[in-house]
C-alpha cells in the first residue's frame, strides 16, 4: 500500500451548533469572551485567565449547568503561545460535559485555584505545578506530588525540556571475531580462547 503523504491543511475551528452548551454559558455570562469551538467530543471554551474562575464557579453552581464533577485538570505547553490549563467538566445530574481552557503566559504562570469548588482539583493542581510550573493561587498546599520535594524549578513536561538524546548501547556490537565465539560479545572479558587462537 503506498504511503499516504498528502498533508491536508489544518481545518478551521468549527463553531458549536446553536443550542449547545456554549449558548447556555454565553447567556449566563454576558461580556465574557468564551470563543467556543466544537471539539471532537466536547464543546471547548477558550477563556481569559482572569475569567476562568468565574466561568468555573458558574459552571459548578448554576441551576442550568450543575457541573459537579471535575473530570480532569491538566496543562499543555504551546511554546510561543504560552501555557494552557484545561478543565474537563461533567454534570452527573444533567449528563452533559464541557471543556474550559485558559491560556497563561509562560513567564507569569499564575491562575486562580479551583480547590474551593472541587476537592478533586487539589491533587490535579499540584501535579500541574510539578509538570508545568503553573502556580494556582489560593491552593492550600501547593507542594510537589509526583516529583521529589526539592524539584521546584524544573518542569519536565514543558517543551523546552527535551528528552535526553538516545545513545547507542555498546554492549553487543557483533564483530568479526564473533563467528566462533557463540554469543559472547567482544570486550566482555570472556573471549580469551578466541583471541588466543588468533595469535
Amino acid at each position, binding site marked *: *500500500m503506498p*504511503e*499516504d503523504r498528502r*498533508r*491536508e491543511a*489544518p*481545518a478551521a475551528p468549527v463553531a458549536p451548533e446553536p443550542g449547545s452548551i456554549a449558548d447556555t454559558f454565553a447567556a449566563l455570562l454576558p461580556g465574557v469572551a468564551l470563543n467556543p469551538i466544537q*471539539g*471532537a*467530543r*466536547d464543546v*471547548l471554551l477558550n477563556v481569559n485567565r482572569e475569567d476562568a474562575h468565574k466561568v468555573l464557579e458558574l459552571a459548578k453552581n448554576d441551576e442550568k449547568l450543575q457541573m*459537579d*464533577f*471535575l*473530570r*480532569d485538570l*491538566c496543562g*499543555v*505547553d504551546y511554546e510561543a503561545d504560552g501555557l494552557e490549563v*484545561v478543565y*474537563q467538566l461533567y454534570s*452527573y445530574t444533567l*449528563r452533559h*460535559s464541557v*471543556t474550559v481552557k485558559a491560556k497563561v503566559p509562560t513567564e507569569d504562570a499564575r491562575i486562580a485555584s479551583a480547590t474551593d469548588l*472541587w*476537592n*478533586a482539583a*487539589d*491533587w*490535579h493542581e499540584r*501535579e500541574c505545578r510539578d*509538570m508545568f510550573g503553573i502556580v494556582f493561587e489560593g491552593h492550600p498546599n501547593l507542594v*510537589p*506530588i*509526583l*516529583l*521529589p520535594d526539592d524539584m521546584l524549578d524544573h518542569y*519536565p*513536561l514543558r517543551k523546552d525540556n527535551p*528528552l535526553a538524546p538516545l545513545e547507542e548501547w555498546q554492549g553487543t556490537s557483533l564483530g568479526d571475531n564473533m563467528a566462533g565465539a557463540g554469543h559472547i560479545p567482544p570486550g566482555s572479558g570472556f573471549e580469551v580462547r578466541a583471541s588466543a587462537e588468533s595469535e
Partner: protein
Amino acid sequence: MAIEQFEDRPAQDYDTIDFNINIGPQHPATHGVFRMVLMVDGEEVKDLISHIGYMHRGGEKLSENMDYRQAIGYQDRTEYLAQFNAELCYVQAIEKLAGLVPPERAEYIRVILAELNRMSSHFMFLGAFGTDLGVLGTSFVYAFRERENLLDLFEEVSGDRLMYAYFRPGGVAWDVPANFKERVKWVVKQALIGADDLDRLLTDNEIFIARTLGIGRLSAQDAIDYGVTGPALRASGVKFDLRKDDPYSIYDRFDFDIPTGKNGDSYDRYLVRLQEMRESAKIVLQALDQLPDGPILPERMPRLLRPAAGEVYMRCENPRGEYGIYLVSKGGTQPYRLRIRSSCFCNLSALRHMTIGHYVADAVTILGSLDIVLCEVDR
C-alpha cells in the same frame, strides 16, 4: 506521701499523645510503592498524608516523543492490570482525531477482550483484598487460579501475558486464533465458577463483614466532589457507568446492568466489583454470539498516522474508574500532548477523607477497597 491509686485517678488525666506511623513505600499492604503517614491518637487515625510519585516514569513525556503506535506499549505499562481497557481508550482517542472507523469484527474483539480484562482485574482485587484482611492467601490463590485462565487466553490472542500491545488505531494487530470462541466460552464459564467460589468464601464470612461493613464510608456527594469514579462511586449509590451513560465503541448494543451499592463502605465496593464480573460475563457472551467475520483493520490504513490537528478527551470505563486520554495533535506523527487522566490518582485523593476517624488496621482495608494500581497513579 500517699501513693495515688491507679483506679483513683480520673479518666481524663490519661491522655495519649499523637504519634506518626509510616506505612510504605515498601509494605505489602500498600499494593505497590505507596507511602502513607498516619497521625494516630491511640489507635485512631487523626490525619493521613499520602506520598506518591515513587513510580513516576514520565510516560506522558515519553509518549510525546514517539510515534502514535509506539506509545501503545506505554498504556500497558501504565495500567498493568487492565491493559486492554487502557489501550482501548488510547486507540479510540487517536481514531477520533484521525477519523478512522474500525471494522465491526475489530470492535467486537476489542470489547470481548476489554471485558475479560475487567474480570481478570477484579479477580486481582478480590484476591488482594482478602489478603489485606488476613485471609492469608486462600482468596489470593483462588483468584489467581481463575486469573491464570484469562491470562492464558490473552497470551494466545496477543502473544504476551501482560504487555499485550494488541489494539491498533483502526482495529487490532492481527486476527484472533481459530478456536477463540470455544476458548472464551470455557474461560468465562471457569471465571464465573471462580467468582462464585470467592463469593461463597467472602461475602457471608463473619470476619470479612466485621472488617469491611461500615468501614471507609464515602457519601455520594463526597465521591463526586473528590472525582472518585468507577466501582467506588457506584458503591456510594451513584448509578453511573460510561459504558451506558456516555457509550463508546459498541457498548450500546449489549444488555447489562450497573450494580450499585447503598452505603459506600468497603463492603459495598467489594460487592459492586463481584457483581460487575458477572455483568462483564454477560457482555462477553452476547458479543461472542454477535461476533461477525470480516477484516480487522480498515482497508486503507496510512502507514504513518498523522491525525488531524485538534484535541479530544476520550474517556472509558476501566475496572478502576474513568480512564481518560486527553490528546492534542498538531498534525504530526507524534502526539503534541498526551495526558492520562488516571482513575486511581483521583480515587486515592479521597483516601484521607475516608480514613480519618477509623483505626489503623482499617486504613489498610480502605486502601485495599480502592483497588489502586500505583503505576497508573504515578504514570
